């Protein structure tokens, strides 16, 4: 890769807006449905510069506010347009510790790109793709810069959970000079980035690199440590000398549907299926991983969100999978998954059974053999604003599947709440926190899915960031 390409062209805004938005080259759908390599291949430096030139550097940019972690978007894109990728990377990292992750999994189309000023006339600047390019370039060039850290404050902060919220919070606190330890229950840091999001959408090597970057900043990561069991929050604060605690434990409690047969062998929560495949590398079973995965030929994934798409596209890649269905009770437009993910799934040959809802799982001798489904029609909008699905009487049919993956959502994991007296939670078990993440317990903040319910990586990162700022003030004021 070239270090610097001196191509700063003097363009008028009109000329800039004439350049059309660049797609990223992608692996061929039929080819990629057989492997676990990443689907989009990323911009080349030339494509990135040309895409960056589409940014008109407007006086009143809205994209920065559209970003939950307020990346200085016009500034980093300016550096890209100048061919100065190193500076672009530094600008990104001023506010975002995980740019290679965000460039891949953020829903930019509803955050920074939707408010891009040129989108009134033409397609918005591909901010996400540029972010990804810059982060990848930096990693490949090995010119990873460590931001300057504030002098040590002598304050100790514990972060619970090494997912997007915790990693971001830890990174910001380390930058401010605090001693930060992240406690992670699983054997690898990353949270949903390693157990949930599949390799072909977010290579684990990238997560490792971004985690390593935090370690270089001095963040300690203690894996195999379950706060609530190995140690409680009270013990961390009263005995181990932590001045403040951030809880970023995520939405780790799978919902099942409460329909007959859901304990049959072959019915999985999306969490179980994805954890087996991603964290435990089950796709390499039996030769390079010991954790078994379902050997079914026909898979049904129930749900219409990003997790459902991840599960379906993962199942599709298993060499023995002949058919993979998405079973979703509403129609295409109500699907909460990103358009891009749905599109990728369609390209890879996943069959979408829409306006369809499972009513029971049918078994033979304890093993799932089929799923009884019912067709639905859409009625009036419900509390979520989406049209409510209503069963059509007499529309039942049977779908032969040996594996069913339930991806209908997650609740909040109760381990911390149960073991932390005085920590207020709502009826769903979500920890109650103010806008900075401050909880009902002195010195304890929380953010991400454990507070707002299952959401996105970047929202969790935004919460981690806000909490870090508030925690900094708190610990500095503490005597």
């Amino acid at each position: 890769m070239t270090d610097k390409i001196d191509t700063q062209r003097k363009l008028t805004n009109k000329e800039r807006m004439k350049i059309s938005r660049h797609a990223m080259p992608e692996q061929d759908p039929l080819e990629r449905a057989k492997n676990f390599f990443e689907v989009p291949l990323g911009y080349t430096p030339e494509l990135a510069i040309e895409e960056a030139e589409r940014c008109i550097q407007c006086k009143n940019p809205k994209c920065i506010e559209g970003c939950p972690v307020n990346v200085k978007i016009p500034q980093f894109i300016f550096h890209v347009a100048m061919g100065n990728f190193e500076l672009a990377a530094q600008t990104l990292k001023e506010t975002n510790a995980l740019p290679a992750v965000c460039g891949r999994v953020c829903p930019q189309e509803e955050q920074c790109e939707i408010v891009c000023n040129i989108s009134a006339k033409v397609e918005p600047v591909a901010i996400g793709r540029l972010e990804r390019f810059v982060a990848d370039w930096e990693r490949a060039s090995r010119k990873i810069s460590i931001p300057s850290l504030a002098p040590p404050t002598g304050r100790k902060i514990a972060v619970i959970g090494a997912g997007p919220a915790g990693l971001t919070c830890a990174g910001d606190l380390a930058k401010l000079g605090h001693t930060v330890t992240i406690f992670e229950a699983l054997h690898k840091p990353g949270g949903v980035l390693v157990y949930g999001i599949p390799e072909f959408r977010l290579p684990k090597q990238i997560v490792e690199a971004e985690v390593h970057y935090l370690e270089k900043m001095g963040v300690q990561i203690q894996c195999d440590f379950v706060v609530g069991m190995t140690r409680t929050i009270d013990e961390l604060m009263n005995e181990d000398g932590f001045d403040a605690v951030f809880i970023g434990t995520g939405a780790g409690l799978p919902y099942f549907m409460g329909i007959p047969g859901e304990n049959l062998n072959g019915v999985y929560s999306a969490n179980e299926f994805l954890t087996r495949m991603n964290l435990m590398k089950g796709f390499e079973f039996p030769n390079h991983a010991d954790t078994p995965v379902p050997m079914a030929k026909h898979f049904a994934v129930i749900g219409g969100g990003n997790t459902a798409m991840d599960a379906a596209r993962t199942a599709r890649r298993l060499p023995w999978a002949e058919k993979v269905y998405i079973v979703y009770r509403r129609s295409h437009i109500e699907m909460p998954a990103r358009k891009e993910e749905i599109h990728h799934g369609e390209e890879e040959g996943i069959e979408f059974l829409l306006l369809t809802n499972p009513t029971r799982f049918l078994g033979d001798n304890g093993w799932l053999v089929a799923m009884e489904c019912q067709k639905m029609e859409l009625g009036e909008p419900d509390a979520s604003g989406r049209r409510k699905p209503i069963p059509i009487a007499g529309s039942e049919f049977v779908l032969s599947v040996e594996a069913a993956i339930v991806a209908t959502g997650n609740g909040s994991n109760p381990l911390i709440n149960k073991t932390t007296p005085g920590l207020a939670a709502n009826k769903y078990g979500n920890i109650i926190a103010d806008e900075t993440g401050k909880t009902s317990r002195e010195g304890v903040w929380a953010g991400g899915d454990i507070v707002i319910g299952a959401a996105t990586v970047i929202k969790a990162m935004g919460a981690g960031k806000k909490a870090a700022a508030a925690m900094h003030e708190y610990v500095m004021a503490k005597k």
Partner: protein
Amino acid sequence: MNNVKGFPHNQGVHVFPIIEKNDLAAKVYRYIIKAPNIVKKAKAGQFVILRLYEDGERIPITLADWDEARGTITLYVQAVGKTTIMMSMMKAGDSLMDVVGPFGVPSHVEKGKTFVALGGGFGIAAIHPIVRAHRVIGNRTISIIGARSKELLIMENEMRAVSDDVRIATDDGSYGTKGFVTTILKSMLEKNEPIDVVLAIGPVVMMKAVSDLTKPYGVQTLVSLNPIMMDGTGMCGACRVVVGNKMQFACVDGPEFNGHDVDFELLTARQKMYSPQEKISLEIFEKICQTQEQRETAAW
């Protein structure tokens, strides 16, 4: 051991050294492992999850004992599948990559009860700390332990040390009562011996037999369930069991449940969820070990 393909050197990421390893009966091994964080919080009835190496799976093992001064935990593991056989090939000085916990709700221990614990096979290891916890607070403790034959019986001395009374059953009658642990319990119940709480830990058939036996007598009966498990934090739902018609996660709601309410049939079925894959995994591993052995023999 490190020569076996697929068993790379521990990279020292998280290191849990084996301090002592003993070969007991019937492929059951005792491991004393350094895990100081776990020792600080360990309570009777809890378990840990371990992983041997980078490509390894996570398996739950009940805590049989722990030593606060040394910072060690004691586990009894029967070598039956790839992971447990691989573990049996490790020796003192080798390290496990991950040991995490303690997990699960600790056993409820209440004063003023006559406590009868039944342990079958290496299930004896799991009842050991629970019996001790009852003994410590002054409860009368009776342990009924069993094995197929005398040579296969484990932990007799350890159980004697924590029980007021130890009764032994062997299938072939080579030691103690001929028959099963339930044979002894049955005669106790028939004789109206005072029993407040029964705990049974062992194979599913044994726990079911004990629960069926005590039900007509209305004696409170606890069993410790051992479904397939992965994370141990309630995140994946692999370990779901049905107790009193309600879905429960054995890792966070259990592992101890009221035996009279457990759907044992479901548990048996769910334990077989990955049997075909486990067989494949073991066959491949055995082939690798054989090749390795042949190569070593040839080198001589």
